[in-house]
């Protein structure tokens, strides 16, 4: 388990003369020697350093308490993930759990009280080390408190599942251990952590440590006592059953970690410390060498690193400044884009459309949304005034004359889009970027016939624009580096994760989702009951079932995309006649708007006489995905398979435990 790359978090111990004559505390600072941009983590070296510091304390008789705090802005953010990723055997994994427990538990077994002063971000093992202490204070400025293990495919296995429910009760512990990690890894701030009971006292950041030490001193002198409810006397089964329902709803059994966490929490009510910690060790050992954690860590790395440095990007110095944006179209998509551009770029954004009513509607949408942000106090009234003044509408494209970036979001029709770009080119400068939000049309084809086709680039957002972080940036045959660099810089300023994609039909996400959907739909067309087909892929733990996704996208759009894909690859992308019927019938999908089954819609799927079982549907859909991934890689649609995974994670919301998709396909033997 030698991990030579570990940035060791040292436990720097120093005597502190506690105020009010309470005696001497050994105050330990966890510090990895870097600033807050490299948070302190625990690897084997870090644990050894803490162990050594605690051994030194145990050898003294003149110490009344131990304190634990972090370097500025960071308490500690858990286990060293690089080290965890390097583990190959169950024995090594078991050792990781045991080592963490062996060191951390000493904080609760020193014979003198221990205090954690949570001055900054505390996550995972960083929060667990605090839980081992007798008391905790927290700074009201702490930006993130979390046990994100279940999000990654782990469990809080250094004491978290045993200690937290006894400290704050099972419901609240489940919120931190299960519910938040499974809700896009939600983190809480200092005041909320205090309200949950994670900390016993809260102080302002300005003099957090001083006031924490004063509080500790008062506790030691008996002036302050902290009540600890006996949660073990309560019945924990209700909240645990409820949480299990939530996990089932989200994962359908696809990833083991949250289930293990639930089991550990259930056992924690009666388990002794020894028993609870031993159970955690076993769970960690199983999970660390499991495929889901590997996929989780891989995914985490992709979204943390690769997403920030798009593969194949040109020199960012080539990017031209964007000081004004033009938007062709004022429909819902265009309006959402306008809101995003105004909020993130804070430059003038002009919407154009064919008639004044549409233009007004688009502008009103942005202003109304800005007012909603103001009402929620997400922005100040000055900021609201600024943003609202930045958006305007125009019936003519003359308003684009001084724009640096014009994006079209008009009807998905090549001829229409070409005409739009030709008109825009009449008024804009030679260096203005022409971007298209097309989801499937060819960028190269769209640029044809323009005076400067090199300035056309694909800029493909995902719905809902405000939430899904992916932006596929598509380079046409003629697109030049400066245009691409400007598009990437703009995407980054919009706080999107950009992936560079070749100009190929459907790009990445729509191509794979359409292929996947096509197989499931084909199974229904062949006679498989709709319900069977729709639930056939449940074991993957996708965010929604295929027909729920169809409902979200809308059958008409799905049909249009599948026709486009069919035109490019007729053999692999059939167009379902039944889907056509669904569109003709004007149905929102196979469900009613409240997602209850619509028998009328289901009845439209006719004609098949060779039904498959769920297993066969799943195998077929996965095999199709694997085939398409391989073809895409051969075509060079993206630089590497990691980019495909990044797209599926960020654009389709596919789960970490699948690693996007290729790690899973490899695991089940469908990809090399």
């Amino acid at each position: 388990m030698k991990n030579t790359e570990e940035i060791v978090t040292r436990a720097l111990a120093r005597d502190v003369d506690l105020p009010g004559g309470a005696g001497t505390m050994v105050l330990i600072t966890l510090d990895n020697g870097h600033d807050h941009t490299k948070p302190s983590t625990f690897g084997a070296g870090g644990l050894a350093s803490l162990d050594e510091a605690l051994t030194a304390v145990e050898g003294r008789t003149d110490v009344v308490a131990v304190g634990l705090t972090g370097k500025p802005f960071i308490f500690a953010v858990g286990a060293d993930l690089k080290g965890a990723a390097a583990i190959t055997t169950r024995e090594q994994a078991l050792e990781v759990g045991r080592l963490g427990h062996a060191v951390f538990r000493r904080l609760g077994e020193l014979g003198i009280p221990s205090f954690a002063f949570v001055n900054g971000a505390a996550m995972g093992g960083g929060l667990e080390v605090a839980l081992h202490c007798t008391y905790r204070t927290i700074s009201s400025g702490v930006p993130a408190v979390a046990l994100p293990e279940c999000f990654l495919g782990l469990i809080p296995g250094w004491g978290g599942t045993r200690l937290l429910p006894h400290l704050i009760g099972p419901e609240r512990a489940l919120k931190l251990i299960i519910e938040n990690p499974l809700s896009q890894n939600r983190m809480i701030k200092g005041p909320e952590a205090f309200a949950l009971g994670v900390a016993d006292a809260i102080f302002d950041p300005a003099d957090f440590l001083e006031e924490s030490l004063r509080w500790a001193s008062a506790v030691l002198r008996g002036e302050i006592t902290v009540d600890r409810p006996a949660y073990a006397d309560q019945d924990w089964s209700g909240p645990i059953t409820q949480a299990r329902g939530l996990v089932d709803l989200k994962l359908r059994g696809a990833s083991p970690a949250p289930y293990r966490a639930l089991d550990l929490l259930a056992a924690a009510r009666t388990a002794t410390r020894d028993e609870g910690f031993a159970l955690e060790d076993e769970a960690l050992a199983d999970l660390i060498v499991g495929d889901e954690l590997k996929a989780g860590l891989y995914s985490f790395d992709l979204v943390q690193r690769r997403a920030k440095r798009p593969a194949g990007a040109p020199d960012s110095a080539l990017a031209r400044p964007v000081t004004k944006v033009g938007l062709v179209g004022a429909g819902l998509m265009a309006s959402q884009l306008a809101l995003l551009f105004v909020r993130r770029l804070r430059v003038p954004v002009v919407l154009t459309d064919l008639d004044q009513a549409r233009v007004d509607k688009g502008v009103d949408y942005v202003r109304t949304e800005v007012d909603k942000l103001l009402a929620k106090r997400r922005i100040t009234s000055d900021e609201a005034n600024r943003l609202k003044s930045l958006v305007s509408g125009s019936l003519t494209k003359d308003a684009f004359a001084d724009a640096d970036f014009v994006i079209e979001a008009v009807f998905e029709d090549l001829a229409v889009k070409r005409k739009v770009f030709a008109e825009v080119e009449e008024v804009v400068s030679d260096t203005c970027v022409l971007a298209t939000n097309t989801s499937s049309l060819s960028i190269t084809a769209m640029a044809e016939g323009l005076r400067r086709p090199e300035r056309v680039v694909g800029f493909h957002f995902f719905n809902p624009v405000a939430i899904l972080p992916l932006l596929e940036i598509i380079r046409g045959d003629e697109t030049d580096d400066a245009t691409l660099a400007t598009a990437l810089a703009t995407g980054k300023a919009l706080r999107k994760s950009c992936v560079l994609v070749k100009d190929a039909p459907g790009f990445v996400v729509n191509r794979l989702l359409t292929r996947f959907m096509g197989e499931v739909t084909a199974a229904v067309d062949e006679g498989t009951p709709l319900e069977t087909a729709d639930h056939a892929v449940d074991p993957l733990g996708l965010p929604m079932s295929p027909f729920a996704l169809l409902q979200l996208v809308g059958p008409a759009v799905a049909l249009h995309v599948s026709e486009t894909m069919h035109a490019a690859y007729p053999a692999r992308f059939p167009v379902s006649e039944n889907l056509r019927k669904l569109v003709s019938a004007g149905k929102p999908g196979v469900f009613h708007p409240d997602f209850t089954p619509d028998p009328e819609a289901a009845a439209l799927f006719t004609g098949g006489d060779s039904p498959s079982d769920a297993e066969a549907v799943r195998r077929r859909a996965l095999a199709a995905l694997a085939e398409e991934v391989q073809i895409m890689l051969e075509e060079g649609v993206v630089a590497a398979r990691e980019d495909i995974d990044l797209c599926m994670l960020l654009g389709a919301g596919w789960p970490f435990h699948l690693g996007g998709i290729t790690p899973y396909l490899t695991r089940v033997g469908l990809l090399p």
Partner: protein
Amino acid sequence: MPSREVVFVDGVRTPFGRSGPKGVYAETRADDLIVRVVRELLRRNPALPPERVDEVAIAATTQIGDQGLTIGRSVAVLAGLPKSVPGYAIDRMCAGAMTAVTTVAGGIAFGAYDVAIAGGVEHMGRHPMGEGVDPNPRFLAEKLVDPSALVMGMTAENLHDRYPSITKERADAYAVASQEKFAKACADGRIQPDLVPTAVRGAERGWGLATADEPPRPGTTLEALAGLKTPFRPHGRVTAGNSAGINDGATGCVVAARETAEELGLTARMRLVSYAYAGVDPEVMGAGPIPATERALRLAGLSIGDIGLFEVNEAFAVQVLAFLEHFGIADDDPRVNRYGGAIAVGHPLASSGVRLMTQLSRQFAEEPRIRYGMTTMCVGMGMGATVIWENLA
């Protein structure tokens, strides 16, 4: 006559540190020190609503880096005072905090403020004396000042020349007494109550807490002092032992209109009677307290005999002794610097003035029968500063 009476409500300070890489504040920012002081003043005086603070005047001699950026305003924001509370920076070298107090007092008397926070900070480790100064060449070319005027130790040697009766032995004896008096005051619990425990951090040592002053050298003997070097003049008289050191620290106090203190229920400990600043030849800046005190006494209509307690800043022993000799007070007069002085506890330039006031107010509380007290100090470039207070205990 002031239109409104001005009172000193409460004063605190950080423990003082020795400047330099081994000092307790070596890696602590100056603004963090004074922020801590302001926070503690508000905490100790819950009757003072933060929004009632009308001004934050903070002194620093070197107003760059973490002592720059209009430190009074920066500190108000960093300390979490409402944004409606203004602040400013002030500088009169060693008398910075004292000037902060008298300046806001002037504003209170005039009716511009009801309550103000005044204080000072000097991190001489991060900002060594003379950092970034650019003296005008005319000073020397036109002999406006003596070349020794900008080196404080040389001005102290010059003062020995002016007062030949003040020998090195007298200076050393005074210094030993200062150390003894400070050690006794600590032992008697006179110092600790007004110290603000302050978090400190070192990259190699982690977080710690400064709870006591670092500069004092209890047990200092005459013999030990006799052997020290005289760095400012061969065979001179001024040594590190009979001077204040190079120190880091911050002080602050709440000053209010007497009527506002009554309205809010703040305890008024001292009433400002008069204050005065005066100039002397820069090369004997240590003589400054003498004319400043004469002026302050005249303004107050008092004589030196009316003053029952003196807090004289001890930049150098010789400068205190010159003051005492001028006014005919004995070197060991019990009215003078009962808790010892800067020779023991340190002198982080612009912060020292409020330390004198805080200690005077505590002595007043111990001696309710004493009516008047004085805080006085010498100032670089040849100045003196004196404030006379009335005991309200």
